[in-house]
């Protein structure tokens, strides 16, 4: 595996405003790289550096063997054809039909008409909109518009697809459809995808890796599972909590404390077979009566992830011994106070 996109120490300023502040990020060929952050974190600027719609103030950007950040505009235009892009507001040409929209990049590339028509038909078939070829964009639903956007982005058989908040204007069900389509684009066509979003659910559905951005920096970047299971920054933890509701909020802890007199602990569920049985044995061995009061286990990247909160009843010393024993076997335990 090699990196298709390499972003090296890139900064971007607009006057005094700093949009990107020393960002380094590699995107492996064939993967879906999620980039999550709140608005203003610099995600949209970052994605526009990759196809040269914006130029970095400093630092370098490579796509394949080409240094995007060093190429003159004319050369960039040729390369942009090999990089697809889709947008939050779809940005379809209202003056053209669905087929006309998909054909546009091919017209720009000077593909002959017959070949163009053939490819447009194939692309519309791929996104399931062949019967809408002669409709105009305003006759389509949001999800259909984005599928046209995807077909247009794929027109020139790119290796790389940039998705800038591609599902943020869609309802949850349509979002799932569009994400499923992007997943097919990645798996069936082998495209590398850079997925910019503020929705952790989108990342969870299709990303292989996720970078978390805040204040123009990438503050965390790792495999999907690792970031979900063990986020290392508060921002990443906040995003994870928008999807996984397995840890009690301070309010919940206060309510639990009121109804359960003993110690409250939260245990992270690792990807380890028989973990909960292992826990039960540990409680029993220390003569502790446990009661499961909060938590849940879900799946990320086809592996279990979650947290369980227990109310413990037993001798103070026995509880202390239990916590030590658990930590010795690499169990991630938090005492809720």
């Amino acid at each position: 595996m090699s990196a298709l996109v390499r972003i090296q120490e890139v900064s971007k300023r607009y006057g005094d405003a700093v949009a990107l502040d020393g960002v380094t990020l590699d995107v492996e060929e064939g993967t879906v790289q999620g980039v999550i952050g709140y608005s203003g974190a610099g995600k949209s600027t970052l994605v526009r550096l990759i196809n040269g719609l914006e130029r970095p103030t400093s630092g370098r950007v490579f796509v394949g063997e080409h240094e995007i950040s060093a190429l003159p505009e004319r050369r960039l235009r040729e390369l942009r054809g090999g990089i697809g892009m889709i947008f939050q507001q779809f940005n379809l040409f209202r003056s053209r039909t669905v087929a006309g929209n998909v054909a546009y990049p091919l017209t720009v590339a000077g593909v002959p008409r017959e070949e163009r028509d053939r490819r447009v038909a194939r692309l519309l078939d791929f996104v399931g909109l062949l019967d809408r070829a002669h409709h105009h964009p305003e006759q389509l639903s949001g999800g259909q518009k984005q599928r046209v956007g995807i077909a247009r982005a794929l027109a020139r058989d790119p290796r790389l697809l940039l998705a800038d908040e591609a599902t943020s204007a869609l309802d949850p069900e349509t979002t799932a459809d569009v994400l499923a389509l992007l997943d097919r684009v990645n798996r069936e066509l082998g495209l590398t995808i850079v997925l910019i979003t503020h929705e952790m659910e989108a990342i969870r559905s299709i990303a292989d890796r996720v970078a978390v951005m805040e204040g123009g920096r990438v503050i965390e970047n790792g495999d999907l599972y690792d970031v979900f299971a063990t986020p290392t920054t508060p921002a990443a933890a906040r995003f994870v909590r928008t999807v996984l509701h397995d840890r009690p909020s301070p309010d919940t802890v206060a309510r639990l404390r009121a109804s359960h007199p003993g110690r409250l602990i939260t245990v992270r569920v690792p990807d380890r077979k028989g973990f909960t049985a292992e826990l039960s044995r540990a409680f029993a061995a220390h003569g502790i009566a446990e009661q499961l009061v909060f938590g849940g286990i879900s799946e990320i990247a086809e592996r279990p992830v979650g947290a369980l909160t227990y109310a413990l009843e037993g001798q103070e010393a026995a509880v202390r011994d239990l916590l030590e024993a658990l930590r010795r076997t690499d169990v991630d335990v938090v005492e809720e106070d």
Partner: protein
Amino acid sequence: MDELIADLPQYVQAIWDTLYIVVISLVASGVVGLVLGVALATTRSGGLLANRAVYTVLNVVVNIVRPIPFIIFVTAIDPLTILVVGTTIGPTAGAFALSVAAAFAVSRIVEQSLVGVEPGVLEAARAAGAGPLRIIATVLIPEGLGPLVLGYTFLFVGIVDMTAQVGAIGGGGLGDFAITYGAQRYNWPIVYLTVATIIVLVQVGQFAGNALARRALRR
């Protein structure tokens, strides 16, 4: 009534002169104004061809010319009219002067129509690898076509109005006819006939423009 019949040839001629001036000015100022307007819309900051110096110069020039009362402007460019047309009298001279004046107004109409085009659509075209000139021709103008057609319709009405003024200073046409054969001879039926003719002309133009704009906007 007899007078009306006696003046009929002049009336018909005046209609033709007006149509001649309107069509020539509409086309000429339409084309020149389109180029100027596209330049204004694309050179402003954030535009496809953003260029502060060019934009500032164009903007200032248009701002200088636009507030000059039309009838004074037409008189002021008489030397230019003589240079190009050879005379300041007659419909061709009128059409020329009118075209120059209207081109500046058109440039603003075009600028406004095009600035309203969604920037995201232009970005999509850039992302597809299109250069600025191609984007102007294949995306910017087609996407702004609805407001452009409405703008040009507005311009048509304005030009009909301006032909009357050009007529008053030797350009011929319906305005000249209404004043020379009507007002100055206290022949009010002639004045009202002319007014009615102009109203019909404007209505036809407005309906046609609206219909075209509806097609462009598909509403």
